[in-house]
């Protein structure tokens, strides 16, 4: 099926055959025996560099698990505990 597709598309467009897909639009594709693995670690490291955070510490959750709601009213801070 794959070869038929290549033949059909080559008849229409000029297209070099570059072999198996490994990297496409910042997406790393690893084709293994039992399946395919997608990851974006390269994109992530570029992002760290862009925001100058190469030496940042790791945290275990993406957002803080406890947070206080701060709303200013009449110049008094009300801080109800919103977790529950």
């Amino acid at each position, binding site marked *: 099926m794959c070869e038929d597709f290549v033949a059909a598309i080559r008849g229409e467009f000029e297209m070099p055959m570059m072999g198996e897909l490994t990297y496409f639009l910042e997406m790393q594709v690893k084709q293994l025996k039992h399946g*395919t693995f997608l990851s974006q670690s390269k994109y992530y490291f570029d992002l760290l560099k862009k925001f100058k955070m190469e030496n*940042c510490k*790791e945290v275990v959750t*993406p957002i*803080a698990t406890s947070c206080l709601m701060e*709303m200013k009213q009449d110049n008094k801070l009300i801080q109800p505990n919103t977790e529950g």
Partner: protein
Amino acid sequence: MPYGDEAGQQVDSTEYRGLIGSLLYLIASRSNIQFGIFLCARFQSNPKESHFKGAKRILKYLKGTINVGLWYPNESNIVLSGFSDSDYAGYKLDRKSTSGTCHLLGSSLISWNSIKQACVALSTTEVEYIAIRHACAQRIWLKYHLIDYGVKLEKVPLYCDNTSAIDLTKNPIQYSKTKHIEIKHHFIRDHIQNCVIEIKFVKTEK
């Protein structure tokens, strides 16, 4: 992350938007950070130092789990299953809830989303009911999508962890606590009657 941090120090909104935009693309392989990014994205119009810190925290989180990605095993087992869940009044500024859904084809994750609900819900049943509605809409889209590939699926299970929301989908009677729910959310009932979808209970821990 403090929510409407009015007193906080202003940060460059272009940089903040850049960070949010870059993080959004990471959702393509890391669906679990979606909620956090969407939360940070709500402050784009007037970002403060604390919001910027919150967005950077997502980057820090990814550092520890960078080798994680999506795994699509080779298998011929085509079974579609959907899951829906939501928090309750999770967004502290306007007390709206966020629902999340995901769909698996066999054991491959093919579709996921996280949506802040458009109205304030009065009960956990209502939020879960709206979450089911989101999942159902996505599921119907996937159904037509799969038909294009020659796969026709019958009743598809959709898992939800709230039994009262499941009962509500099967029961057309209006009770005082549920009759205010917007008409559009009831479209799920029609699809259950037409046997397009079947809602099942799943424990929260599973």
